[in-house]
């Protein structure tokens, strides 16, 4: 039960951040384009996400007559499930070790002295996240196929081709980090970097970092890789035929995926929750230390979320053949070369 409460808190927190990412995106895009962005609902437009949600719930849910009903209903569920599942692995902060949770009423905290700020600690965290995100393709591909519309089908096809292509580069760019850290566990990777900012893997693995970032943009279908939903060509791509809450699920899945990828970049290359100097101010393992580290973690994530929005407001879209050429002929060879380079260096450092 105690863990259930922790999980619920994490879940609500992530969803709130995601909701406000949408608002931030509209605001920042507005500033980039010389407008104000949403400013009518609540002070400074702060209640806009809830207004949007209410609108999505109240709208009429249209189902295309000739769609494949079962798959049509399944697709958004798959998309949002696969987007939310990596949440169990987010390393939100350092473990709290100085408090005995026995004071929690009803005996719920009995015997819990060490509280890791991760929902599940799996030995193969990195692989798990990669696997789940690769299953997320089905949501989009099936949505495109089942809508029985040519725009949706084109969007679904583009998206599956794109995600298969960039997944390889993404996996290859992670291998370098895994080799340096010597573990696939996300908390283990953070611990390998938690000595000083100069040990963050962004320095020895800068090529991997850049490749991962680019591949992450492609995996989340964001500008400049948003061909699956290119509105000038495909109306809205794979979710053209979706309305009301089903569309909201796709929309949310996209932003949760953005969040996941930001978490992964932070954990793999920027030391996760480790913030330099905090260990001197607070006692390691105490609650203030955990909160401060968590804030640092969120700060790094927000940096990348801002980068996403910034790039959306700045860059034009790729053409599809350019996208494929870039992925297969440039990004993948660079990532592989980085892997080989890392292997050689690690080998010589170890001997």
């Amino acid at each position, binding site marked *: 039960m105690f863990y259930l409460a922790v999980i619920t808190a994490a879940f609500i927190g992530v969803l709130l951040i995601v909701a406000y990412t949408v608002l931030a995106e509209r605001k920042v895009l507005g500033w980039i384009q010389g407008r104000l962005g949403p400013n009518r609902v609540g002070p400074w437009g702060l209640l806009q996400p809830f207004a949007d949600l209410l609108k999505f719930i109240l709208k009429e849910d249209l189902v295309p007559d000739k769609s494949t009903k079962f*798959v049509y209903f*399944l697709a958004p569920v798959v998309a949002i499930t696969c987007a939310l599942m990596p949440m169990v692995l987010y390393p939100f902060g350092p473990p709290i070790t100085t408090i005995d949770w026995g004071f929690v009423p009803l005996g719920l905290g009995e015997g819990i002295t060490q509280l890791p700020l991760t929902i599940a600690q*799996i*030995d*193969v965290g990195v*692989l*798990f996240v*990669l*696997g*789940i995100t*690769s*299953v997320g*393709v*089905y949501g989009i*591909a*099936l949505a*495109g*196929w089942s809508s029985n519309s040519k725009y949706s*089908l084109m969007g*679904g*096809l583009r998206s*599956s*081709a794109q*995600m*298969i292509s960039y*997944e390889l580069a993404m996996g290859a760019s992670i291998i370098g980090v895994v080799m340096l850290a010597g573990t*696939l566990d996300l908390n283990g990777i953070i611990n390998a970097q938690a000595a000083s900012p100069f040990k963050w893997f962004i320095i020895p693995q800068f090529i991997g970092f850049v490749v991962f970032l680019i591949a992450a943009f492609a995996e989340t279908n964001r500008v400049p890789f948003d061909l699956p939903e290119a509105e000038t060509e495909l109306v809205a791509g794979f979710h053209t035929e979706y309305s009301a809450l089903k569309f909201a699920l796709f929309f949310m899945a996209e932003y949760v995926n953005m969040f996941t990828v930001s978490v992964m970049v932070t954990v793999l290359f920027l030391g996760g929750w480790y913030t330099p100097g905090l260990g001197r101010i607070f006692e390691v393992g105490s609650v203030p230390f955990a909160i401060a580290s968590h804030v640092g973690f969120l700060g790094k994530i927000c940096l990348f979320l801002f980068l996403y929005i910034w790039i959306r407001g700045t860059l034009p879209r790729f053409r599809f053949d350019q996208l494929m050429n870039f992925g297969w002929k440039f990004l993948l060879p660079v990532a592989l070369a980085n892997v080989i380079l890392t292997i050689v260096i690690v080998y010589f450092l170890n001997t």
Partner: protein
Amino acid sequence: MFYLLAGFAIACAISLVIHRNPLYSAISLVGVFLSLSCIYFTLAAPFIAAVQVLIYAGAIMVLVVFVIMLLNLDDDKPQTRLRYLYAVGGALGLALLAQTFFIFYAVMRTPQEEVNTEQTVGNTISIGRAMYTEYLLPVEIVGVMLLMAIVGAVVLVRKLNQPQLELVVEEELERRHEEEEIDDYRIAL
């Protein structure tokens, strides 16, 4: 937990065989893979579980779904010609069932022991160590065979008598250039 996952896997497998629409079959197969992966997780083999999802559900089946979507096949009509295959299939199925029961029987007979989860075969370290020391030669042979498959696929795609793409483009450019010259000539006239 096991019965839930196994039941889901079996239900997916049945729907895989029953459905005439290839896309439904493909989705069912994904369901089978996912529930298998969950079973691996419950057996303290997280690496195998993750790789199962990553490779089978995430890569291979996505390609299959992709191809099915591209072809957009209609529902197949039941084939009447291959009647005798039903008999063969039934016999093979019975053999498999017998084998499954034999494995169940053999597992029941062996003594049950507590296994340390740190040292199971599904662990990342133990898999890596086994693959690159004890089974190094088979791993390398598989690697070479996969390379052969890739090269073979490329050779099949590129027909040998097919003209080089650059040549075609050059010819096309030359032709256009000539046409333009002719047009210029006409305008001059």
